[in-house]
């Protein structure tokens, strides 16, 4: 490693440690930011010599990255950006902090995938899904798929592990020469009714899908979820025991197994390590507070709200909505979510944009009570489970009240 890169690495690690010591966060962004200021090529230098997997998509990337890193741990030490800091500053921090590891699994914000592929020369890229997310500033879904497609076309040596159930992902991946398809399901289909190749309608039936006007159709997956397990490319079924709730995480586990398999890890070796993952950067974490068992679920966009309802128990539920910069300033997506599953439980609402949520729930015929703080919510519910479903900054606010639980 060049001297400049060594200095930059050292500064990056020190700054991250100082940031953590000062209680200013995880230190997962500031360190990388400083390191890249000193050496703009620092990420490339830190990536060199490691076998790397990148994981990207609108939803599930933090959890899938965590599971894939756990699975790759079978082979040796793995560097990973486990705090969800998924832009190049976060990748730089994570690799600097980890020191020399033979492997790395990095979660990548979908907007940055092309750049991070260029800089880290990954062996494997895992593509999960593409759906609407913060549309007031994010690229439209079809444009994002085009960016991915172009990025992968420039790196024909990369092995792509991609979701056969999402037409946008399939179209983005199809130009690659090494593809492994997995089926993790697609709960949210409203962003892929129109074929990105031909503009014709896409038809769906019993999990299959095809374009009515061109060649694009669902490829046969090598990995898929079946019952409470995963079927591998040889047709062998493996029971998957997770601490993380919901069908969604079973799909994330299938994806992680498929990514790890590209490095030679067998499912039977990886599965015990997947079972050891209890929470992911606070997501799914359970905290006892004043006799209440609080469980934190993150829901950032319509697809992930549907998933959160699938995971949540029938228990008092606090919903918290903000619309700060990381969340996107637009709350229109609230009407893309059907909150009807919450009608059978007490619902409390809070957050900067609680009034938007109040109007939405009234239209949805979901009774609710507005509270001004997380603490007020705790006092209002009986002892027992309190499910908390919040979008990004609202989640971080509540996590901070719970001493930054991981």
């Amino acid at each position, binding site marked *: 490693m060049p001297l400049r890169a060594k200095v930059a690495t050292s500064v990056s690690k020190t700054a991250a440690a100082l940031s953590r010591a000062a209680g200013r966060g995880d230190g997962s962004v500031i360190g990388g930011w400083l390191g890249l200021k000193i050496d703009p090529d620092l990420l490339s230098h830190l990536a060199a010599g490691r076998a790397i997997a990148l994981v990207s998509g609108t939803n599930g990337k933090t959890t899938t990255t965590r599971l894939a890193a756990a699975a790759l741990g079978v082979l040796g030490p793995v560097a990973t950006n486990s705090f969800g800091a998924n832009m190049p500053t976060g990748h730089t921090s994570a690799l600097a902090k980890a020191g020399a590891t033979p492997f790395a699994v990095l979660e990548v914000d979908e907007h940055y995938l092309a750049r991070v592929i260029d800089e880290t020369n990954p062996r494997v890229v895992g593509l999960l899904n593409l759906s*609407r997310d913060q*549309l*007031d*500033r994010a690229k*439209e*879904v*079809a444009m994002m798929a085009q960016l991915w497609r172009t990025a992968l076309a420039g790196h024909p040596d990369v092995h792509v592990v991609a979701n056969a159930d999402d037409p946008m992902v399939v179209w983005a991946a199809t130009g690659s020469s090494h593809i492994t398809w997995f089926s993790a399901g697609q709960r949210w289909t*409203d962003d892929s*009714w*129109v074929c990105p190749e031909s*503009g014709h*309608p896409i038809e769906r039936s019993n999990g299959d899908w095809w374009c009515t006007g061109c060649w694009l159709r669902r490829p046969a997956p090598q990995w898929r979820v079946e019952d409470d397990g995963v079927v591998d490319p040889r047709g062998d079924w493996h029971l998957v025991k997770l601490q993380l709730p919901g069908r969604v995480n079973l799909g994330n586990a299938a994806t992680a197994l498929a990514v790890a398999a590209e490095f030679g890890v067998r499912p039977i070796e990886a599965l015990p390590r997947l079972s050891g993952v209890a929470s992911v950067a606070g997501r799914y974490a359970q905290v006892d507070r004043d006799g209440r068992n609080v469980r934190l679920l993150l829901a950032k966009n319509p697809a992930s709200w549907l998933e959160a309802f699938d995971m949540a128990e029938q228990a008092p539920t606090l919903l918290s909505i903000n619309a700060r910069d990381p969340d996107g*300033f*637009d*709350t*229109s*997506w*609230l*009407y*893309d979510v059907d909150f009807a599953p919450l009608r059978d439980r007490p619902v409390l609402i809070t957050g900067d944009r609680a*009034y*938007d949520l*109040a*109007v*939405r729930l*009234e*239209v*949805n015929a979901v009774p609710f009570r507005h509270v001004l703080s997380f603490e007020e919510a705790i006092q209002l519910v009986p002892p027992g489970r309190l499910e908390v479903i919040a979008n990004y900054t609202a989640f971080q606010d509540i996590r901070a009240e719970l001493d930054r639980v991981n």
Partner: protein
Amino acid sequence: MSTESTLRIVWIYPDLLSTYGDRGNMLILGRRAAMRGIPVECYEVRSDQPMPATADIYLIGGGEDGPQALAAQRLINDGGLHRAVNQGAAVLAICAGYQLFGHSFFAKGAKCAGLGLLDLHSDRGETRAVGELRGDIDPRLGLPALTGFENHGGRTHLGPAATPLARVTAGIGNDGQTEGAWHGKILGTYSHGPALARNPAIADLLLRWAIGADSLSPVDDTWPDRLRAERLAAAGA
């Protein structure tokens, strides 16, 4: 399909134009009608289905360039929406749906023919208009201030037969001066997505047009009023 007294609401092409929570407008209209005891039926008409000409209120929402161009082409070929408008149906057209009600609009860099049901045309602005939008609605409509969130790259120019829906007091709207358009019983706006959530008075105007009533019984708007006050203050105009 329904009795004469049932109010029929059509949501046009949710498979193409529903990028921003547009379903909300159909849900809100249905709820506000039901609260007045007006029987209501909502129909989601997909782009591969014929467009009925006999409904009372038509809703069309926002979307990306490709689906917008496809929707305009299908609506022109179908003709059902033109017949409905000529028979006096009420319309709420939003964002991409608003643009395609004009004579022409731009999608994916190409000029596309619109429905020509509003006297206006749209082109691309130099910057994308993103953020809170606020305007004083044409006093002849007798409505309180418009509040919304806009997110569009287009600029819209009105001809003599269309009237601006509002004068912009915060945000961009059509061109930084005016926002939206109305003509007959057609309302168009850049206030995107579930615009009626923040503007229940516009929902009631559409209902009044559709049933030919001068007024409707009041309903409890505690939460919409709180939301309106918060967002109007946030727009800072």
